[in-house]
């Protein structure tokens, strides 16, 4: 049976400081590839995640984010490429790798046959942790997840947000070095999302490495130090949210609405204003360093939009530019 002390001191290259200032990578993926039959779910992606970093995987549905997460956890075998998590190959050392991982899956898979606190205790037992450690730890995590007064409740009596927080609390039972979060806030109301973000910030402050997938761009901007945008199993771009915006979008965006029937035709008349003009069915977007100046140019050409809005460029602009606007399922 593995004790907590062993879990924490288990030898791995990351624990040993290799030299002052050198970045310590907890995950290194090289040309990581996964085929399901003839279909490439993950098609040769490479990335490194440093200890304590919050790293995001962004991409539309079916981009291969969850598959990448599964390979990191060693519950899905890669087709080719290299992968090292805490210095170990998850395909060869699944149980040891997962001893360092906390996992929050896309769909809650809490044990509905057990009560709230028992969910934490039993999950800790799966890591081989002793009850003398688990009892106080479970109470501490219930406190952290703001579920102390629900300790004896049945799991199916919890709200969606509570279940999500319990799943996160459960993932922390083994004091993981890396937390894998697969769309952690999908389906939650804004209050529940903000509570969750706050909890994740605290974990980051404690030095836990966060790997998260999401398709909420505001979430990625809030939480991620660095991210990669994945589409059809390939990396489209990578970097910090600010750097990605700088690189793939303008500083500001001017949104103009001329009415659904006129938007399409008016694009040509706007040519030359700002860095790029994009015509959508419901509005026209002008990417420009200075949105107000662009708006003045539009007026100067005698065009009168029904509505106009100047805003900062967001990660969403980058995301849509890189992965396209058409719906893929």
């Amino acid at each position, binding site marked *: 049976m593995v004790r907590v002390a062993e879990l924490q001191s288990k030898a791995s290259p990351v624990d040993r400081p290799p030299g002052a200032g050198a970045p310590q990578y907890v995950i290194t993926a090289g040309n990581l590839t996964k085929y399901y039959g003839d279909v490439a779910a993950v098609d040769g992606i490479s990335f490194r995640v440093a200890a304590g970093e919050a790293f995001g995987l962004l991409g539309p549905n079916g981009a291969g984010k969850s598959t990448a997460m599964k390979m990191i956890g060693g519950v899905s075998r890669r087709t080719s490429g290299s992968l090292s998590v805490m210095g170990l190959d998850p395909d060869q050392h699944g149980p*040891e790798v997962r001893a360092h991982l906390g996992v929050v*899956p896309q769909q809650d*898979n809490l044990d*509905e046959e057990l009560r709230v606190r028992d969910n934490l205790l039993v*999950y800790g037992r799966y890591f081989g942790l002793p009850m003398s450690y688990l009892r106080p730890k479970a109470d501490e995590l219930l406190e952290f997840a703001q579920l102390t007064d629900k300790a004896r409740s049945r799991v199916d009596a919890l709200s969606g947000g509570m279940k999500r927080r319990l799943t996160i609390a459960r993932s922390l039972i*083994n004091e993981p070095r890396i937390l894998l979060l697969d769309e952690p806030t999908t389906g939650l109301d804004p209050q529940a999302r903000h509570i969750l973000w706050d909890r994740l910030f605290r974990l980051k402050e404690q030095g836990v490495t966060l790997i998260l997938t999401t398709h909420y761009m505001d979430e990625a901007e809030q939480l991620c130090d660095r991210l990669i945008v994945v589409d059809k199993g390939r990396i489209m771009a990578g970097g910090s949210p600010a750097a990605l915006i700088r690189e793939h979008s303008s500083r500001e965006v001017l949104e103009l609405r001329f009415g659904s029937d006129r938007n399409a035709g008016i694009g040509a008349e706007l040519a030359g204003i700002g860095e790029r003009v994009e015509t959508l069915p419901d509005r026209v977007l002008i990417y420009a360093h200075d949105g107000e100046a662009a708006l003045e140019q539009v007026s100067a050409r005698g065009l009168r939009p029904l509505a106009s809005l100047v805003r900062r460029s967001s990660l969403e602009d980058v995301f849509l530019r890189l992965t396209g606007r058409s719906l893929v399922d």
Partner: protein
Amino acid sequence: MSVTEAARNRRYGALYSRNVRAVVGRGLMATKSSNALVMLSGFFEPVLYLISMGVGLGAIVGPVQGPGGQEISYAAYIAPALLAVSAMNGAVYDSTWNVFFKMNFARLYQGMLYTSLGPLDVAMGEIFLALLRGLLYATGFTAVLGVLGLITTPWAVLMIPASVLIAFGFASLGMGITSFMKTFQQMDWISFVMLPMFLFSATFYPLSVYPQHIQWLIQAMPLWHGVELLRQISVGVFSPATAVHLGYYLAMVAVGILLTTGRLRALFLK
């Protein structure tokens, strides 16, 4: 560490973490909090059959010939068969439907497998739980037989470990078979095989009523060996066939474990 041990560790390193007891502990806790009624129904099933067929039907059938040629009551004749059937049903339910549901709907195993547990820990834990339940049922049923005066020899106590062996054979093979199942329709095939096996494996009347080639077919089926094994034990009359019945189950356990282990990834990592 010897070379073979190192090789084994490499082979099962990703599949096994020597923590079967956590899976068993989870099962016991879940049973305590929600499955108590299901457990009771499994105990009563053979008892109800015994009362209806053994006592009711037995009243018009009269005494029949037991394995050693001696006369025994009809209830005493079918009691060991019912025990074998209940061992089979419990083990098959636990290793097929139960595993299928937990994997595809409760997503319980997905959660377990994201911890230090490997698929082999989960499989062995679930089989152990099935056997533990089988042990409880067999003990309870044997006690009922004692109360009804159907036990005539101390050998009958051995029916308890023997029915655990029968359950082990069905559970290990059943889990291997479940690994090939993808839909509910396919799962229904399991009942399609089990019901005729229950009715025709010399459960309620001797094998001799069948023509020769049907006898061979039934003798190839696992339940018949379980029925005959327990029937012999119940009266303490043994023959070389006893060893054949035992060997059949030992082989079934071995094949089942090999199949289940080989199909572990398919079974739990869908």
